């Protein structure tokens, strides 16, 4: 097992294109860290720099306190699972698993013991003598995982290993990976652009954009306290509603105001937001913070908001209502309500907003205004 530390790690291609900039990050021994971000955000490049498959332009990479920048990937004792699995097509599954062990000159009996153990764990025993081309996508994925596990490396690097699987298999493998991490207690870094994977799998998630780390934290902490509008808009489906508005001081109380929405801010936040009183801001409202009854809208009882329903998406356990504030002309927002009540397009409904969950962002920097952290519970 290993702790991995990145200090001001930067990757520049041809001295011009900066793929990763100044990444400072520590991944603890045995931690499950998820790198999350849209395509081209630098998450895979960061992972490949840790693996040694990309050179680090500047900064330091430390594994267990030892600088590894110039250590060959073959000597780092890390295992990687690639998105396309990268199974050796000319070898059987057994040979694929044994390849790394043979290179380390392990004894035959030990190789056989490890392969037996891993194939039993992953259920790939019956396919040991098959070639990768004869396996389904899910089976290849398991073999790729097995090839990483069988080596018992210091840490596992997973480069979008689930993205080629269909939705059902992806959900199954997600659970299996979580269980596996719990069982092995190994350091794992998982790269994904899928926020559901990130939320469900990571002990911590590191959100990246344009080669920079935007926010690092426990999934629910990040979810509840997004650092900026990018994180707020990236996590969850539907994402946070971001509305242009302003903060108004009135009667000794601060209000977040946008068309058709006027919310008195909880006193605990007022102090933190005071510097922006009277200024333009971006107001962030999570869809699930709208409730059908006031008793569920937090201790403060919720703010009644009247909306005109524009679209109804009944998902089964919940319903996503797209609705506009201030009649049809107002800004449209997404809300998530319990399944059970039927809504009609064009009807007016009153939902209750949990004001303690409101987010306010600076217009220019798009960063969240500092406020007391909302605990993930």
């Amino acid at each position, binding site marked *: 097992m290993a702790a991995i530390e990145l200090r001001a790690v930067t990757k520049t291609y041809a001295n011009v294109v900066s793929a990763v900039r100044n990444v400072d990050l520590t991944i603890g021994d045995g931690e499950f860290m998820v790198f999350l971000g849209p395509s081209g955000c630098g998450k895979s490049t960061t992972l490949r720099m840790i693996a040694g*498959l990309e050179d680090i332009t500047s900064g330091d990479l430390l594994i267990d306190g030892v600088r590894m920048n110039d250590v*060959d*990937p*073959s000597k780092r004792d*890390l295992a990687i699972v690639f998105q396309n699995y*990268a199974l050796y097509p000319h070898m059987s599954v057994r040979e694929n698993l044994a390849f790394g062990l043979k290179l380390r000159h392990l004894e035959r009996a030990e190789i056989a013991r490890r392969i037996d153990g891993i194939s039993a764990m992953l259920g790939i025993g019956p396919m040991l003598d098959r070639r990768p081309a004869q396996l389904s996508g899910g089976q290849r994925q398991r073999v790729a995982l097995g090839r990483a596990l069988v080596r018992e490396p210091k840490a596992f690097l997973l480069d979008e290993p689930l993205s080629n699987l269909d939705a059902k298999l992806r959900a199954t493998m997600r659970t299996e990976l979580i269980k596996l991490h719990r069982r092995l207690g190994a350091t794992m870094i998982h790269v994904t652009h899928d926020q559901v994977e990130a939320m469900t799998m990571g002990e911590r998630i590191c959100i990246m954009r344009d080669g920079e780390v935007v926010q690092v934290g426990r999934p629910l902490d990040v979810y509840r306290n997004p650092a900026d509008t990018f994180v707020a808009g990236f996590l969850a489906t539907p994402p946070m509603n971001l509305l242009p508005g302003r903060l108004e001081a009135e009667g000794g109380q601060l209000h977040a105001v946008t068309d058709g929405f006027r919310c008195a801010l909880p006193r605990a936040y007022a102090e933190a937001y005071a510097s922006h009183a009277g200024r333009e801001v971006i107001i962030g409202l999570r869809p699930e913070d709208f409730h059908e009854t006031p008793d569920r809208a937090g201790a403060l009882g919720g703010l009644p908001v009247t909306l005109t329903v524009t679209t109804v998406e009944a998902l089964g356990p919940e319903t996503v209502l797209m609705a506009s504030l201030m009649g049809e002309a107002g800004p449209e927002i997404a809300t998530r309500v319990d399944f059970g009540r039927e809504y009609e397009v064009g009807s007016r409904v009153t939902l209750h907003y949990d004001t303690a969950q409101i987010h306010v962002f600076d217009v220019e920097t798009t960063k969240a205004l500092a406020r007391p952290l909302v605990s993930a519970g």
Partner: protein
Amino acid sequence: MPHTLRTFVRHAILIAFSAMIVLPLVWVLRVSLTDKLTAYKIPPEIGHLSLDNYIEVFRSFPFALWFGNSVLIAVLATLISLPFATMMAYAAARFRTGGSPLWIAVLASQMLPPIILVLPLFMVFLSVLPVDSRIAIVIAHVAINLPFMAWMMVSFFEGDSRSLEEAARMDGATRWQAFIRIAVPVAGPGILAAGLLGFILSWNEFLYALILSDSSSQTLPVGLAGLETHAGVDIAPLAAATLLALAPVLILLPFLRKYLIKGLSLGALK
């Protein structure tokens, strides 16, 4: 155009083009099985068929020597070029060694009429190697074929093969081990196709073999050309010898096609 008519036109065009390729071979086959007098008759006659010309090729000319020289030279030239071409292609695919100027130079050298290079090459050989020897022809063929084979193989080392090697490196393989144990076997069909093509090019090569050989090191194309004399062309034995010379190429072509197609779909494991 109705469907049947369209099919008819399509088939007619295909048959015409196939005939352009096959008919000369059939003609040579006919000539090789008849005597000299029947061979020249128009309209063509089949006449009495026999294998006499094939026997005469071996009896009257050093055909076995030419054939042996051709096999030896083509095999050696291929065996020497293939590993170097493989490494050159790998280096170009992985590290962009030489960049595009290298490949422009390679292609440009292929565009030069071979005759331009023959005399300089002859002069070079004259000072360092025994000309009129098999080894001189082998080296000349390596020099001609190697860049072309490397150029052909570059694409086989690009694409998925790169991530396989990265997987091997992570598994603990050095770059050389990853090359030998992963990249080469995965690109195997492509390498084989390039090797077969190199063999065929060397087998058919005439100009360098003509300039650099003497009577003991003549290859088949040079020997066959020698059958055309001032006294005329001994057409029937020449036809027999031509077919015998074609035989190895005809045998290898289906393999070349198979491996070339396999090579093009290398590592396509999605």
